[in-house]
């Protein structure tokens, strides 16, 4: 049963990701990306990583994509304002991405034979285990990321502010 869910969600994720790139209207791209993120959240649930699924939906669909949509509306770009690209550019982009995919698929042939280092444990993605790891082994990166957020917040405000000097 879960196999079918996996392939269904994979199909949805790839389909919506392709639509993000191919749709003309930027607002449609944002909405397709939100759907793609929801199918990735379904993958997290299949992996028994409930905490990641919840955080993924809250952070990406709830915060980041709303920010994207807000900026698109602010710039009034919700129409096709993109000049058509030359066919050489399209062919080159498709070739480059396809070759990258070829390299990836050629390099994963032995992935199934990878040994799993630890005892099999189904509860690894639950909040208890993640919290213990986060606050014991990753205490310093956790604190540093709070400083990163502070710097990013100040930077975003500074960059987004209008300059009075030049006016």
């Amino acid at each position: 049963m879960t196999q079918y869910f996996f392939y269904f969600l994979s199909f949805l994720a790839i389909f919506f990701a392709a639509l993000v790139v191919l749709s003309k209207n930027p607002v449609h791209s944002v909405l397709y990306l939100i759907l793609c993120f929801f199918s990735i959240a379904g993958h997290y649930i299949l992996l028994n990583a409930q905490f990641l699924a919840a955080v993924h939906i809250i952070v990406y669909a709830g915060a980041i994509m709303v920010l994207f949509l807000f900026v698109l509306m602010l710039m009034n770009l919700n129409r096709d304002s993109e000049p058509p690209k030359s066919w050489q550019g399209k062919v080159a982009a498709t070739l480059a991405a396809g070759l990258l995919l070829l390299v990836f698929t050629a390099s994963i042939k032995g992935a199934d034979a990878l040994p799993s280092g630890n005892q099999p444990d189904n509860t690894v993605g639950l909040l208890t285990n993640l919290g213990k790891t986060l606050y014991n082994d990753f205490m310093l990166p956790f604190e540093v990321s709070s400083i990163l957020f502070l710097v990013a917040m100040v930077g975003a405000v500074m960059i987004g502010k209008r300059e009075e000097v030049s006016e």
Partner: protein
Amino acid sequence: MNQVLTAAPLSHYVLLSSILFSIGVLGVLFRRNAIIIFMCIELMLNAVNLLLAAFSVHHSDPSGQVFVFFIMAVAAAEVAVGLAILIMIYRNTGSINIETLSNIRH
């Protein structure tokens, strides 16, 4: 073999993440709208996140999922600063087409 990955073998997760990452690369090379390029970068980050989570479950090691958590935090900060820069560019040049931004190098 452990039975932790119940849905699909590990190689299928690697294949799915590779396809999603390649679609992100394709979008970065294909589109000219800077916001859509940003969204494709988010898509690539998510492909890597999914792969990290799959390997974390495969190894029964929670560190990988903690790293996914950190990547999400850094992505949120990156989007905030990047969109502020894009708004600044739009305010100064009236466009977010990356072709018009190539005069930055002069």
